């Protein structure tokens, strides 16, 4: 049974979330602040964390940084659950290391779908280090997850509304392994599905020699992902 940690100081929010999670037959642990959360992470097996942004003393974002710097919880998916509903808030959370974002009041159907996607490993999610340099040159810099890779480019998913034609910068493990620090891509289609945007991107700004390596790497990744899906 999967273990879910709810980090929420507001007792009515915690009550509603824990009820919904227990209804899905997951084990639920509740922490009312950052200290209790870190304690739970030491004591219990936690598969996913639902983290409120507005916590007393230590904020959700500071706790998220701490979670990401700890080898035990570094790769644990963290969903921010917050009433903050502006794009800049979502962007900040994802840049800090959040895996996903849910806006309060929480829709039980959306929560269930998102939990299942992470817990059933339908998403090949890894924490991403985003290059801060992107901000200084006026580009949006988002953490994203690769859902599919093909010869023409990559298909990615993000919680942020990104329109077709937008230029975005990718900083994903695939490219980091190749020693490429930043990759510019252009979004050639953007489709909204529930709260997720599925984008198809071309890869631009790479040297011909790098493209060869990317294609080689893409094929390997595609095979690996097919295996996971099967």
């Amino acid at each position, binding site marked *: 049974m999967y273990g879910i940690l709810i980090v929420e*100081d*507001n*007792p*009515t*929010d915690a*009550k*509603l979330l824990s*009820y919904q999670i227990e209804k899905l037959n997951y084990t639920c642990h509740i922490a009312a602040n950052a200290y209790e959360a870190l304690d739970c992470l030491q004591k219990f097996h936690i598969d996913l964390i639902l983290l409120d942004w*507005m916590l*007393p003393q230590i904020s959700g974002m500071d706790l998220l940084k701490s979670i990401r710097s700890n080898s035990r919880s570094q790769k644990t998916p963290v969903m921010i659950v917050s*009433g903050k509903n502006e794009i800049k808030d979502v962007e900040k959370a994802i840049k800090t290391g959040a895996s996903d974002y849910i806006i*309060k*009041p929480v829709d*039980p159907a959306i929560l269930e779908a998102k939990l299942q996607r992470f817990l059933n490993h339908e998403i090949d999610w890894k924490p991403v280090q985003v290059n801060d340099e992107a901000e200084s040159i006026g580009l949006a810099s988002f953490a994203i997850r690769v859902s599919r890779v093909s010869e023409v480019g990559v298909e990615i998913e993000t919680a942020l509304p990104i329109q077709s034609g937008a230029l975005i910068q990718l900083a994903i493990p695939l490219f980091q392994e190749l020693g490429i620090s930043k990759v510019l891509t252009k979004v050639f289609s953007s489709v909204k599905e529930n709260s997720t945007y599925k984008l198809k991107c071309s890869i631009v700004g790479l040297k011909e020699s790098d493209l060869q390596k990317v294609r080689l790497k893409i094929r390997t990744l595609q095979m690996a992902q097919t295996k996971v899906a099967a």
Partner: protein
Amino acid sequence: MNSTMQHLNELANTLNLIVVEELIVIYSEQIEEAKREFKKYLIDFQADQIAFLSHKMKSSSRNIGAIELAELFDSIEKNPLLLTEMSYKRMLTLFANCQTSIKEWRLLNGT
């Protein structure tokens, strides 16, 4: 039937009566605490604390279906200077209305 009673009915249908009753008990305790805290902040103004408490009460008020209260807390969260004697009095009135709705809902549902 007002928004609070309607929302509590919807919650009872999707969750169950026991969970709704637990939510009501928690929220009633939060109301009493919020009354004391906001009164304190009227004298000793602390913008960050007012915004933080308003944020928390906004979320709980939404959970219980107290929409007018949630809107009031939302405005105070965005601008803590809106916490005045007048807005505090309005808050107390809305709290009282909400508690009346909860009482009526409890009577109707025998909780």
